[in-house]
């Protein structure tokens, strides 16, 4: 029997994860609830006059993305680990990089759903009108969520082996996604007119370059990470 093709493995892993997630809604609901709680935390911490709110919003958005993303990424292989299916997944003739890519996309999908909920809510609570620049902010957050997924997912796989994995993971992942955070906060600030800078597109390209570099690097290294 021929090993399955790369893209079909990606699709199967992604579809399987989304299907189980849609049935249990375990991770998604925890992430969404955490996002909801965070919007209140940020609102209570930062809400002030309209000009200040507008300045604070980019930071609150990107911090929410990172914090909720950590929950999702930490659960990447939780189901496999609980039921002992991880070894089966690794031993199958499927390309491991494809498995990882499927997992990355699954985490990305989760972040998208949560951000669709959190972004309007935060904008509403901080009373900032983002409708005029919604498209570019959405694009920035999409690429940012991808950046978070490509860095966080392989590390989450490795964290399964460590003690205190759930505590260690954010310690390890947050410094590594700092470029995305800087670029995202600046880019969104420019889009909202609160940060001085040439244009928001430069930062979009920056995040895209980060995504490609770490995405390709992670997929390339994954084979080395989980042999045996």
């Amino acid at each position, binding site marked *: 029997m021929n090993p399955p093709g790369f893209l079909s493995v990606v699709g199967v892993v992604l579809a399987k994860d989304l299907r189980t997630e849609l049935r249990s809604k375990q991770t998604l609901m925890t992430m969404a609830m955490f996002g909801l709680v965070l919007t209140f935390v940020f609102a209570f911490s930062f809400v002030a006059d309209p000009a200040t709110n507008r300045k604070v919003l980019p930071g609150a958005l990107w911090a929410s993305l990172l914090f909720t993303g950590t929950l999702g990424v930490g659960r990447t292989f939780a189901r496999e680990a609980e039921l002992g299916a991880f070894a089966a997944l690794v031993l199958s003739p499927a390309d491991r990089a494809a498995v990882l890519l499927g997992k990355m996309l699954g985490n990305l999908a989760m972040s998208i759903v949560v951000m669709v909920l959190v972004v309007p809510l935060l904008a509403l609570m901080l009373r900032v009108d983002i409708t005029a620049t919604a498209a570019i902010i959405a694009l920035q957050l999409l690429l940012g969520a991808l950046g978070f997924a490509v860095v966080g997912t392989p590390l989450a796989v490795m964290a399964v082996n460590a003690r205190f994995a759930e505590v*260690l993971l954010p*310690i390890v992942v947050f*410094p590594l996604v700092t*470029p995305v955070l800087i670029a995202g906060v*600046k880019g969104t600030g420019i889009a909202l007119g609160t940060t001085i800078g040439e244009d928001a597109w*430069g930062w979009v390209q920056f995040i895209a370059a980060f995504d490609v570099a770490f995405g390709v690097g992670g997929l390339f*290294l994954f084979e080395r990470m989980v042999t045996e």
Partner: protein
Amino acid sequence: MKPFPIATALSALGLFAAHWLAFDFVPMERTMGAVQRIFYFHVPSAWLCYLGFLMCFVGSVGYLWTRRGRWDLFALASAEVGLIFGFIVLITGPLWARPAWGAWWRWEPRLVSMALMVLIFCAYWVLRTYGGSGEGVKRFAAILGVFGAPNIVFVHLAVRKWRGTHPDQVVARSDSDMRVALYSILAIMLVVFVLLVVQRYRIHKNAFRVRALRRRLSRLGAM
């Protein structure tokens, strides 16, 4: 005589010489005054910190490809010693910046990338110290070591894009005595760096051996 104690003794003498060079030999810097002397320790520490983290990157790649324990130990020892020099950089830098710039900290590419690098390797250290010592943790750390290096480049680019300003290169416009002092101190500190890496490597190797022996003993029912 064993070479290691001799080298250690010599490097201790060298550190005295380094202080003489920095505080007595070099002329007083005209605009900045005495506080500039901190640079003879700050700049070499920064270079050695980068070297340590570069070595950690190399060790991590080596470990992922060969799965030989010695590459992992090399990466771990390098990261630890690099981290020490990173702390020296982050302590001496603000001490200089406060009188020279009027602020302890500036959001400037080199500062931010150094701070982030130290942060990443703090995470590396926490992982190695508290995450357990299994094979999986070593691989986890190796991935961190590999991801850390290109990340610094991105951080540096991001902050440069954001700020657009670069501080003056202090080394470039120093006079010859200053350069002699700087490179001599760098050489002395490099020796200290190498000795520390060697020592940490040995300690980890022995600790690993002790753990393996303990396991064997307990399997034999003697413990």
